[in-house]
């Protein structure tokens, strides 16, 4: 099966200064990422704030030009397409349904805008497709004439999803789509996204800091740290046998609702990652509980012990040996 989306050698660098005469700051937000994803799959991208996951999403969608690398959807390079053609292939759903919808437009206008921008659909057809999409995402027809301010957070996120899907794109990039919502509403939106994926054969990139949510919706998971995927695997493998020490720490810090288990000691210390100052060798070594001397100089980039991407020098082909090395 050919890939629905393929990303090759993607980098994005930001340059800035600390004040007018300050030293130049070079932030390598996305620092060499490649993956391919089959149609109908969901790649969950997890990482902490500042790891570059949102920048990655924006570069993939073409909202930011890459410094290096390319993105292909259905084998077509996105940077060779104009905006209209790109919009038919890839669409976003953002975190904040309060700022991502124009407050002065009706829901019908908001959801219809991508169709209007394509310019090849009559007014009547557009209306029909908007109404069909609204019912698909669980909004009643009378919502069409309302303004975003008259809707709840969950309803607004449904509008954002309807707008993303009205052109029937191949890929939907969801950047923290449920983080601004209450848990009861979050569950509604996750169920809706899962349902739509099956019905419409969609492929998602699902960016989130919430591992429990990613575990629920993703088929494949990539763990991002300072601009790189440090581990990537099918969802069950990653959650059952996390191999990178950072993945292990992240999984350990998920607080499941199980009383009596206490608060885990994640053992990461105080060295917070700074994307303007990426450490040499393994970029995770200052926080790593098992780092050795060679981790400070030798780069683990591109390592695939046992066929799984795990950018750690200390993870070998023997899975059983990992569990001895890293206290879970």
């Amino acid at each position: 099966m050919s890939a629905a989306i393929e990303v090759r050698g993607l980098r994005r660098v930001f340059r800035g200064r600390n004040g007018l005469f300050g030293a130049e700051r070079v932030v390598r937000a996305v620092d060499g990422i490649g993956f391919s994803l089959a149609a109908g799959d969901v790649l969950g991208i997890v990482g902490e704030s500042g790891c570059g996951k949102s920048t990655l999403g924006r570069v993939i969608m073409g909202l930011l030009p890459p410094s290096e690398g390319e993105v292909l959807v259905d084998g077509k390079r996105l940077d060779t397409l104009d905006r209209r053609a790109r919009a038919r292939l890839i669409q976003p759903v953002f975190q904040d349904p309060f700022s991502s919808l124009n407050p002065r437009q009706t829901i019908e206008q908001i959801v219809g805008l991508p169709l209007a921008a394509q310019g090849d659909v009559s007014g009547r057809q557009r209306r029909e497709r908007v109404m069909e999409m609204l019912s698909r995402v669980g909004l009643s027809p009378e919502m069409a004439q309302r303004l975003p301010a008259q809707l709840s957070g969950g309803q607004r996120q449904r509008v954002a999803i309807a707008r993303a899907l009205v052109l029937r794109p191949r890929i939907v990039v969801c950047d923290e789509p449920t983080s601004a919502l209450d848990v009861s509403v979050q569950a509604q939106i996750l169920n809706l996204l899962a349902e739509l994926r099956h019905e419409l054969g969609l492929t998602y990139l699902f960016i989130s800091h919430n591992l429990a949510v990613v575990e629920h919706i993703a088929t494949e998971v990539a763990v991002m740290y300072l601009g790189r995927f440090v581990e990537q695997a099918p969802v069950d493998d990653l959650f059952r046998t996390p191999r990178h020490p950072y993945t292990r720490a992240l999984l350990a810090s998920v607080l499941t609702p199980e009383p009596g288990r206490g608060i885990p000691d994640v053992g990461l210390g105080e060295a917070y990652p700074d994307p303007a100052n990426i450490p040499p060798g393994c970029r995770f070594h200052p926080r790593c509980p098992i780092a050795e001397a060679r981790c400070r100089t030798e780069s683990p980039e591109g390592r695939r012990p046992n066929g799984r991407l795990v950018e750690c020098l200390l993870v070998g082909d023997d899975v059983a040996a990992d569990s001895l090395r890293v206290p879970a």
Partner: protein
Amino acid sequence: MNAVLEVANLRVAFANGTQAVRGVSLKVERGETHCLVGESGCGKSVSSLAVMNLLARGATRSADVLRFHDTDLMKLSERHMAALRGDKLAMIFQEPMTSLNPAYTIGSQMAEALTRHRRVSRAKALDRAAELLGRVGITAPGMRLAQYPHQLSGGLRQRVMIAMALMCDPELLIADEPTTALDVTVQAQILRLLQSLQRELGLALLLITHDLGIVARMAQRVSVMYAGEVVESASAEALFAQPTHPYTRGLLACIPIPGASRRDEPLGSIPGVVPRIGPDFQGCGFRDRCAHAAPICAQVAPLQHAAPGHDYLCRLPPDWSAAEAA
């Protein structure tokens, strides 16, 4: 032994008539973590602000009991309340960036927290600040004291907030979503810190959160709030083992649990949205979203006991869910 904080029938109404808090009762004992959990708009933060008498202008509060040890907080003048606030009764807010003053160093803000309430020199206060920064796991505290808030990461700022709250040896600490703005790994560090400080100092901790994972791992007692009311109150074990109010049960079904929830099945969800509680609203606030609602739910719901120390606010009998499953 008396509770450190005792609240009975606390009510708060806003100037526009919204009933934000509709009869909240709870107790926090010495050395205990009591979690107040609920979704946005349920009244959990307003309840804590009402305790501290920090409500916005136009909001009114009333209570049958609002007591800190033996002090009746309802009768306390603002001057006496201000003396208590930040002293024996301390609070940490969600956003450590906006609750620190960007124009003053960490040291001067921390020292002021002490010199405001005690007759100590600034030098002594700075010593105490450095000691507490070390206590909350900040390395090189002397250097940090001279820094400004923007020079610190979010996790460090929240540690500073905790250290500042401890300057006067509080007996009650109210923490409102103290880790919500932080990454999960930092959250775990901060919560561990709160837990160990609390054990060491015998603090009473009222922890406000929307995160049931935090509740399960931190709380001895839990009060679940919905639409201004405590709908269920129990020990943490009892609440998670036998959630009784339909809202609590619905909320627990909504959370995906790695390894436990089935991925090919939809998550549980609660239909509808939180109602607006106007001045004339009466009865159960959850009835519009509840699958078990009946006409009687428009009247004030009865407080029932599921077990000793486990109360819930609903017309249904304690064993309703078991009876339904059978």
